């Protein structure tokens, strides 16, 4: 009989509106800082939403992102920003895990699965302008490979010589969780012993902000007080705030990690997926798709609801979604809801779309490591009471052994993942 395989997390990297570097970002998150600002990278005069979580520019030593520290300058034009961010997060995670393939056999047993919700939107925009100007023959030979979503996985594999499964996920705002969950299964099924998995997004551009404004999804009431705009479950919430960034985990088969004496952050112990079959952008009634995704993750891990200590909610700060997710959790957890902490870290960094689930996986794992639930900023007047502690405004020290993270996407796609201390 085949021995039971287990999957653990041995490396992490993150770049988000709170900066670059796992410890730097986490410290700021726990301190209750916000990464939401007025948009500076382009003119927002004609846009109803003028705020976002942009990755701070500058040197790595200051916890900021400068692409030239990660990518040779001549290669910048070959990658849209989402790829640059993804490559930086993956490089951090690889450094952190302390592993490099030492043989061809090891190379073929290690793969990459990094997704994005949208991909190279700004690159596609710029190329479209060229076509519009009648300069179709002047399109860069790097246009297509710099916009394709799976090219984060491609670049990471080339940089580190990883010749195992090379895959990608595109499920809107559920991308990050799907990437990590599917990568963990590739290890469980024996396709690989190590997977570099996560999500990357860089859609803070006129098309991205304009497009989500058009679907009435973004906050517009807090343009003058950006730090107050992302306020999950608060009565004054009026839409999500777009963020950009990337997060990448190194997932590793437990024995593989143990043999090399790797530092182990947590184990991936449950993963559940579902579809709404309901509406392209609105969640189903009672968020029953979210309910089933969580239920499936618990069943997959063989957990009872009373074993979950912390939930990192999808909680985007939209009027409809937040309370529906809360209701779904209350219904699923029953009496166990009383001992639960659930927060939305999107309150501090905004919604990173395809990278959100990956960043929130990092936060969930650090919540377990440090026994701290990160806060839900700006939750001053909940629109609805609940027995669940939503960690309003300030981080809380509390016993956290097992954490569940939710991500739901346009199209009615839902994913939940569970991490546990080893």
């Amino acid at each position, binding site marked *: 009989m085949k021995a039971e395989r287990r999957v653990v997390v041995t490396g992490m990297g993150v770049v988000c509106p709170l900066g670059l570097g796992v410890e730097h970002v986490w410290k700021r998150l726990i301190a209750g800082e916000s990464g939401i600002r007025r948009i500076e990278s382009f003119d927002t005069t004609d846009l109803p939403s003028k705020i976002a979580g942009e990755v701070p520019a500058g040197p790595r030593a200051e916890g900021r992102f400068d692409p030239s520290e990660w990518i040779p300058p001549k290669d910048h034009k*070959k990658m849209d920003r989402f790829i640059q961010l993804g490559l930086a997060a993956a490089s951090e995670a690889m450094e952190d895990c302390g592993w490099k393939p030492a043989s061809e056999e090891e190379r073929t047993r290690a793969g990459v699965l990094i997704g994005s919700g949208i991909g190279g939107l700004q690159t596609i925009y710029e190329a479209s302008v060229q076509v519009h100007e009648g300069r179709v023959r002047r399109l860069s*030979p790097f246009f297509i490979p710099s916009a394709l979503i799976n090219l984060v996985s491609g670049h990471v594999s080339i940089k580190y010589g990883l010749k195992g499964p090379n895959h990608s996920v595109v499920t809107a705002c559920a991308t990050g969780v799907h990437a990590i969950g599917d990568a963990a299964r590739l290890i469980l099924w024996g396709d690989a012993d190590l997977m570099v998995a996560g999500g990357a997004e860089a859609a803070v551009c006129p098309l991205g902000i304009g497009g989500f404004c058009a679907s009435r999804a973004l906050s517009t009431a807090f343009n003058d007080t950006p730090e107050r705009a992302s306020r999950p479950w608060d009565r004054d919430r009026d839409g999500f705030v777009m963020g950009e960034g990337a997060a990448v985990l190194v997932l590793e088969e437990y024995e593989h990690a143990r043999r090399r004496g790797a530092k182990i952050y947590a184990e991936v112990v449950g993963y559940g997926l579902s579809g709404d079959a309901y509406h392209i952008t609105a969640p189903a009634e009672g968020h029953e798709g979210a309910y089933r995704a969580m239920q499936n993750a618990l069943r997959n891990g063989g957990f009872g609801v009373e074993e979950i200590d912390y939930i990192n909610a999808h909680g985007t700060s939209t009027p409809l979604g937040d309370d529906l997710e809360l209701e779904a959790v209350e219904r699923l957890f029953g009496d166990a809801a009383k001992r639960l902490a659930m927060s939305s870290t999107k309150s501090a960094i905004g919604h990173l779309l395809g990278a959100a689930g990956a960043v929130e996986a990092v936060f969930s794992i650090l919540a377990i490591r440090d026994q701290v639930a990160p806060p839900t900023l700006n939750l001053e007047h909940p629109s609805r009471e609940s027995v669940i502690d939503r960690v309003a405004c300030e981080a809380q020290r509390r016993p956290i052994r097992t954490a569940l993270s939710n991500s739901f996407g346009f199209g009615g796609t839902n994913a939940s993942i569970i991490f546990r201390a080893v």
Partner: protein
Amino acid sequence: MSEIAEKVKKIVVEHLGVEESKVTPEASFIDDLGADSLDTVELVMAFEEAFNVEIPEDAAEKISTVKDAIEYIERQKAA
């Protein structure tokens, strides 16, 4: 060095991210300057833009060194 040669050299340095000293007339874009086939396509496009010339596909394929590029452009400009 001619004005064209200077400009070609500058474009090669910028696009391929190589040191100026390596961009000798004999240097091959692919073998000596680290370009791949897409880099050379882009380089030829950059020459076309900078010198306002058309470099058809079959001519572009024959441009493999710095000297090839300079000579081709000089011929076009002289014509």
